[in-house]
């Protein structure tokens, strides 16, 4: 009996929920933020979520939105779970979102074919499908500022320069410890190609997702193989565990390089021994920028943020800020291109293609020197921007290099192969019909 009532009530509630989606007033711009403050990746996800939210909230508080139009921010909790991410997407789809940022490669992949149908651009910042950098094939997907192939080529170039030239890498051994998933395996073909051409040796150490926190066997093998350099492609708890294991197994930390995902917490996990650990990065760390000061003043001090005051300016917090900087800039550009105030997903797609974040514009935004310039176009949805190397000095990240250029020709070969492959495998992949604003 009681169960009958309960099930009736449940059914009714479901129906209600399905039909009565809240309608948003058309004088605002709806920006959904897919975040994960829960689950196995919350350690990284919380900082990113705070950074993303706080920057846009700051624009709301300080300037009343973008171009005078208020932003409606809504977080949807994905827990880094594809199932929940797709549910989030379905729940925000009806509210005219101007773009989505899935913050998980697993969530990005199912959304890629839907983007052009639903007219919602996807901003997967330096993750997701690398091939989507090709704007002529993926007009709705954006993954600035660099692909993983760019990242790998920058690390190899940097190591080569330290050795005194790429050809000096001949005969060396480079260990590649990576998450055993699409994300971690992506750079492998390029690494092997480089190994063949330059003549170094590659040792692969895959880490399965369920063993992220237990890498003793990989590091034991590394100890046996004695690679001259270790390169890491990890995410979440894998990074911290790797640093800890590297320190424990006595691997020289100054020979340990990583792609751009470790955070301060990951480096701290290694204690004092983690000193010398290096990673790629493309934006500044710290809060000494007018825009970040404004976040402190308008958002954090007013209690509108979930972030503790001292976390503002940490690496992944700023990563979130960078993501929101792109969102805001895409909206602002869309307003400029279309002349409309309240922009739609289609407008923001054009906005993203016309993004031009040069030093002058960054200064205007209060982020002078925060990052390199980024210019996107109809054909290039990535930018392939150089990144710099930074080193852990035991307490904070220190920038130790100038921007390192990626090996563009090699990356382009990988990219073109992957993009045509994707379009071919998906028979009937739509040809680009969206007109181009900045055909060059």
């Amino acid at each position, binding site marked *: *009996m009681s169960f009958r009532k309960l099930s009736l009530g449940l059914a009714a509630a479901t129906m209600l*929920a399905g039909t009565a989606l809240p309608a948003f007033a058309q004088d605002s711009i709806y920006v959904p933020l897919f975040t994960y403050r829960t689950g196995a990746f919350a350690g990284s996800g919380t900082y990113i979520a705070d950074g993303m939210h706080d920057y846009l909230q700051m624009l709301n508080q300080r300037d009343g939105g973008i171009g005078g139009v208020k932003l409606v921010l809504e977080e949807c909790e994905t827990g880094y779970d594809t199932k929940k991410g797709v549910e989030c997407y379905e729940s925000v789809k*009806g509210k005219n979102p101007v773009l989505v940022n899935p913050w998980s490669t697993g969530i990005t992949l199912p959304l890629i074919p839907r983007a052009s*149908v639903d007219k919602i651009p996807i901003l997967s910042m330096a993750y997701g499908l690398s091939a989507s950098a090709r704007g002529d094939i993926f007009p709705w997907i954006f993954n600035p500022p660099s692909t993983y192939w760019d990242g790998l080529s920058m690390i190899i170039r940097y190591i080569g320069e330290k050795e005194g030239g790429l050809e000096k890498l001949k005969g060396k051994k480079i260990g590649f410890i990576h998450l055993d998933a699409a994300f971690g395996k992506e750079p492998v073909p390029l690494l092997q190609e480089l190994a063949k051409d330059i003549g170094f040796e590659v040792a692969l150490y895959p880490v*399965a997702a*369920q063993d992220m926190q237990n890498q003793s066997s990989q590091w034991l093998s590394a100890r046996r193989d004695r690679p001259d350099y270790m390169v890491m492609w990890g995410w979440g708890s894998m990074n911290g565990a790797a640093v800890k294991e590297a320190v424990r197994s006595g691997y020289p930390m100054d020979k340990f390089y990583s792609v751009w995902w470790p955070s301060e917490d990951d480096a701290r996990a290694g204690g004092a021994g983690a000193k010398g650990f290096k990673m790629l990065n493309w934006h500044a760390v710290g809060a000494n920028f007018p825009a970040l000061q404004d976040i402190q003043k308008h958002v954090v001090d007013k209690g509108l943020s979930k972030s503790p005051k001292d976390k503002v300016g940490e690496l992944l917090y700023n990563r979130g800020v960078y993501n929101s900087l792109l969102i805001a800039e895409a909206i602002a550009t869309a307003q400029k291109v279309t002349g409309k105030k309240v922009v739609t997903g289609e407008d923001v797609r054009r906005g993203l293609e016309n993004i031009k974040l040069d030093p002058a514009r960054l200064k205007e935004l209060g982020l002078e020197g925060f990052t390199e310039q980024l210019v996107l176009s109809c054909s290039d949805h990535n930018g392939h921007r150089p990144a710099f190397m930074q080193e852990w000095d035991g307490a904070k990240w220190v920038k130790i290099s100038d921007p390192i250029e990626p090996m563009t020709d090699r990356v382009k070969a990988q990219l073109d192969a992957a993009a045509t492959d994707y379009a071919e495998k998906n*028979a009937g992949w739509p040809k680009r019909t969206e007109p181009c604003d900045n055909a060059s």
Partner: protein
Amino acid sequence: MFYREAGQFKSNYVSDAAIFPLREDRIGLGIVIAAAYALAFMGSDFLLQAVMIPFLVFSLASIGLNILTGYTGLLSLGTGAFMGVGAYACYKLMTAFPDVNVIVWIFVSGFFSAAIGALFGLPSLRIKGFYLAVATLAAQFFLQWCFIRIPWLVNYNVSGALDAPLRTFFGIPIIGATATPQTRYLLVLTIVILLTWLASNLVHGRIGRMWIAIRDMDLAAELMGIRPLQTKLLAFAVSSYYCGVAGALLVFLWYGGAEYDVFNINQSFFILFMVIIGGLGSLIGSFFGAALIFIMPIVLGIVLPALLSPFGISVGSDTIEHLRFMIVGALIIFFLIVEPHGLARLWQIGKQKLLVWPFPY
């Protein structure tokens, strides 16, 4: 009053052995099916795509596991992997033979899953209970390893993920991004109804009796002439068939593309919880379990903020997530204490009480 047995006479064996002996039950079932079809035209996209399709997919997977665990008494933790086999098989088939209708491949992909399931079911003849669970856990890890390591399975895609190319049915897109939630939902609904009907006939017939006999006491069943090897393997095969089809539906009609990680051990547990909460050895329980475990959190996510906001409490999406976990967890414990045999048993009690309502004697 409206639901009673009086006046309905069974005059032959067929009506006596019917699955729904009561006219009211048959009418009710008809209404539910009609309503389910009507929903395709009345429900919003969110309701269809994010609630109903996954609910049906999980129901189908639960039916699969229920055949194995509920009817035959063999505990399995490999459900996620068996779903994955179905999905990968379907992908290989539909890309290798693009001209054959994809609905055929969805049904055929289940057979691949069935074969793999039967293979990993072989140890079940010698080991039982927790030990069998561990053996099926091996299937889970081994198959997941295969999904990552064999690029042939994804046609050497660089992303290593399954994608859903466009496929049509009489010119209407059913798979791929252009397929509308309506068509997807109608297809999933029809497949689930067909397979549920098949399962119902299986478990109520000779084969089902054999499974139940093995479950209740395999030694006695063997002495009565039931061959344990064949029966157990058949249960594994049929169960995996259902899981495989559910996996194919999950990737191609719900997600529209997925990574190997979708079929991890958590998926197996997720389905197992549905079966346990819904009721072991009950088909309708599979639906109840899927509803409670999958739909309840979604409803809570929508209802909780609405309930709390009048009191001036605005909660973040992460707090909602924590609340969801706590409430769903508490409800699971509550239901298991109130009725350890699952929601199906509650449903049965409810129906029995209703038969004599409002004059219990």
